[in-house]
C-alpha cells in the first residue's frame, strides 16, 4: 500500500501537467478518493505552476463575432439544467451516481449499491437497496420477496422519488402505494406530506385497516393505529391495486404483512402536488428563458455597438485617407470657407492637390438641408459661376470629393461658396451662401 502511495505521489507532477496515460489517470483519480496521504499541497503548487506556463504567450484576442456565437450556443442550452455537483468526483469523496463507462473502477461497487428494480407477476415493484453498515438481504432473499427497510445514507443514492427522502425500502410495494412500514421514523414526514391522505394497514389477520387523516388535523392522526376496518371506510376511495394487494398479502410472510401501503392515487394532495410541480417547472423554465434572453440580448447589443463603432472608425479612416490623398504633394491649395452671417457656425475646408487634380471639401456644422435638397459648391470667377460638385448631405462632418475642379484660366481671385440647391444641382446658385472663401490671385 505504501509503495502504491509512493507511486501515486511520483505521478503528481505528470498529473498536474496533464500527461498521465489513460489508465494511470483513472488510477490516480481512484487514489484521490481513497488515500489522504497524497501530497495535496505539492499537487496544488504544480497545478498552479502548470496553469501559469501559458501566461507568457503573446495574448491574441478572439474575433469579436465569437462572443455572439458563444451567446447563441448558451441560448441553445437554455433548457438544460445544470448537473448536480454530487455526480462529480471529488478528492475527498467519491464518484457519486456515476454510471459512466469511463468509471471503470467504480462499476462493480456502483452496481452493488444501485437499486434493483424487479417486477413480479402481480405487477408489484420490488426494490432492494443495500447499505454498508448492515448486512442487507441477498439476492436470494429478494427473489423470495423478503421485505426489509433501510435508511438511506445522506450521501448515498435517492432510490424512491417520494417525500420520504431519508427512507429507503427493501422489499415490495404495490404500484400506487408507498411503503410506510417504518412508521415511527417517517411519521413526521408523512404528516408533512401533502400526498398521503389515506392509508391501508395490512395486519396479521389479513385485514385492511384504513385511516383517513385530514390536513386540518394532521397531528391527531396516527398513521398506524388501529382505525376503521375496510367496511367502515366510507369514503369513495378507489385503490387500483386492492385486489393485487389482497392477493399478494396472502402470499406474504408475517413480517411482510406489517407493511403499510399508502395509496397515492386520486388524492387531492397528489393533484395539488402535480399542480405545484407544474407551476414550479414553469417558473424555473421562465426564469431560465429570461436569463438566456438577457445574455443573448446583452451580447447582441454589445456586438451591435462594436459593429457601429467599427463602421464609425472605418468612415473616419476613409475621410482621413481622402484628405491625406489631397494634401500629399508639393502643390496643394488649402482654403478655409467660413460661415456667412446667416450660418455663423458652419465652416468648410478645401484641400486641393493641383498636381493630381484631386481634392476634398470637408464640411463642418452644416444645417440639415430640406428634403430633396443638397449642397452645391460654386467657384465664382469674374462673376461667372462654375459648379464644383454636389454634396448629398449625410452628416455635418462629411466630405465632398473633388476629383476635378473646372480648369479656370484666370489671374483673378476665385471665390468659393456653398449653397443649398435641388439634389440634381443648379446651373447657377439659387440659395443663400452658407460658407464662403476666396482664393486670392497669386
Amino acid at each position, binding site marked *: 500500500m505504501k509503495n502504491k502511495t509512493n507511486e501515486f505521489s511520483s505521478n503528481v507532477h*505528470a498529473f498536474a501537467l496533464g*500527461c498521465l496515460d489513460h489508465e494511470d489517470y483513472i488510477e490516480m483519480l481512484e487514489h484521490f478518493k481513497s488515500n489522504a496521504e497524497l501530497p495535496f499541497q505539492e499537487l496544488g503548487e504544480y497545478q498552479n505552476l502548470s496553469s501559469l506556463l501559458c501566461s507568457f504567450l503573446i495574448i491574441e484576442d478572439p474575433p469579436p463575432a465569437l462572443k455572439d456565437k458563444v451567446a447563441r450556443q448558451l441560448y441553445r442550452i437554455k433548457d*438544460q439544467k445544470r448537473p448536480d455537483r454530487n455526480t462529480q468526483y471529488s478528492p475527498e469523496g467519491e464518484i457519486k451516481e456515476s454510471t459512466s463507462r469511463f468509471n471503470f473502477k467504480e462499476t462493480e461497487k456502483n452496481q452493488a449499491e444501485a437499486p434493483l428494480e424487479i417486477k413480479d407477476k402481480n405487477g408489484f415493484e420490488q426494490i432492494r437497496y443495500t447499505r454498508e453498515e448492515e448486512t442487507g438481504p441477498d439476492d436470494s432473499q429478494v427473489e423470495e420477496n423478503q421485505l426489509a427497510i433501510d435508511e438511506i445514507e445522506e450521501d448515498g443514492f435517492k432510490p424512491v422519488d417520494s417525500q420520504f427522502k431519508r427512507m429507503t425500502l427493501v422489499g415490495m410495494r404495490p404500484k400506487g402505494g408507498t411503503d410506510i412500514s417504518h412508521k415511527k421514523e417517517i411519521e413526521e414526514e408523512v404528516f408533512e406530506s401533502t400526498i398521503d391522505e389515506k392509508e391501508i394497514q395490512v395486519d396479521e389477520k389479513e385485514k385492511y385497516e384504513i385511516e383517513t387523516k385530514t390536513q386540518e388535523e394532521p397531528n391527531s392522526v396516527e398513521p398506524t393505529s388501529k382505525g376503521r376496518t375496510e367496511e367502515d371506510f366510507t369514503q369513495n376511495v378507489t385503490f387500483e391495486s386492492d385486489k393485487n394487494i389482497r392477493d399478494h398479502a396472502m402470499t406474504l410472510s408475517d413480517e411482510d404483512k406489517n407493511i403499510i401501503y399508502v395509496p397515492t392515487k386520486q388524492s387531492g394532495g397528489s393533484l395539488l402536488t402535480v399542480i405545484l410541480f407544474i407551476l414550479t417547472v414553469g417558473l424555473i423554465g421562465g426564469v431560465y428563458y429570461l436569463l438566456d434572453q438577457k445574455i443573448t440580448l446583452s451580447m447582441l447589443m454589445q456586438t451591435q455597438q462594436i459593429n457601429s463603432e467599427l463602421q464609425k472608425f472605418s468612415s473616419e479612416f476613409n475621410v482621413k485617407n481622402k484628405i491625406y490623398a489631397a494634401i500629399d504633394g508639393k502643390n496643394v491649395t488649402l482654403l478655409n470657407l467660413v460661415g456667412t452671417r446667416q450660418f455663423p457656425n458652419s465652416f468648410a475646408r478645401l484641400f486641393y492637390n493641383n498636381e493630381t487634380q484631386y481634392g476634398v471639401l470637408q464640411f463642418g456644422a452644416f444645417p440639415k438641408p430640406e428634403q430633396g435638397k443638397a449642397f452645391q459648391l460654386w467657384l465664382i470667377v469674374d462673376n461667372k459661376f462654375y459648379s464644383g460638385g454636389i454634396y448629398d448631405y449625410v452628416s455635418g462632418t462629411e466630405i465632398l470629393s473633388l476629383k476635378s475642379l473646372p480648369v479656370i484660366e484666370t489671374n483673378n481671385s476665385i471665390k468659393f461658396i456653398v449653397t443649398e440647391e435641388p439634389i440634381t444641382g443648379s446651373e447657377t446658385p439659387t440659395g443663400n451662401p452658407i460658407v464662403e472663401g476666396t482664393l486670392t490671385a497669386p
Partner: protein
Amino acid sequence: MAANYSTLSDSELMQRVSGSDSRALEVLYNRYAPILYTIIKKIIGDSLRAEEILSEVFVIIWRKINYYDMKSNNPYCWLITVTRNKAIDSLRRSRMQAGEEIEYNDEYENYFIIPRLSPQIDELDLKTALSIQNNIEDALHKLTDAQQYVIYLAYYEGLTQNQIAQKLKIPPQTVKSKIRLALTNLKDNLLKGGE
C-alpha cells in the same frame, strides 16, 4: 444598486456565474477569452477550430460551474485547465484512427475535462498570473533544452508520458523523471527569481 461587474474579482464573478448570472459570465468572457483563445490556438493551431473550442469551453463553464470549488479561490487554474483539457482532448481525437474513437458525453466530460484541483491549492487569479508572466518565462528558459522540450510535448502537443517515451525513444520511466525534474526545477527557478 447595480453591481459594477468590471470591478469584481474573478472569484466573485465565478460565484455569480454559479448563481446563473449571465452578465457575470459575459464579464468573465471579456476577461478570460483572450488568454483562453491563445492557449487553444497554440495547442490546436487552427483559428476556426480554436474559436469553436473556446465557445464550447464557455458552455462547459456555464453548465459545470458547480464543479468548481468556490473555496479554492483559484478560478484561474480551473479555467485554464478546463480549456487546456478541452483543447488537448480535441487534439488527441484528431489523431485517433477509425475505431479508436471514444464517445464524448457528459460523463466523459466530467471525468476528463473538468479539472480536479488539489484541495490545498493556493489562490490564483488572472491578474496575479499575468503579473508574474516574466518570472515564469525566465524560470522556464533556465531549464535545460531537454526539460523544456518534454514540457512542451506534454503541455502543448498533448502527449502522454508513454507517447513522449515513444517519440523520444527513451524509457517511460526516464520521461517520468524528466517531467518531475523539469517541474521541480521550474518551481525552484521561479522561487529564486521572485526573491
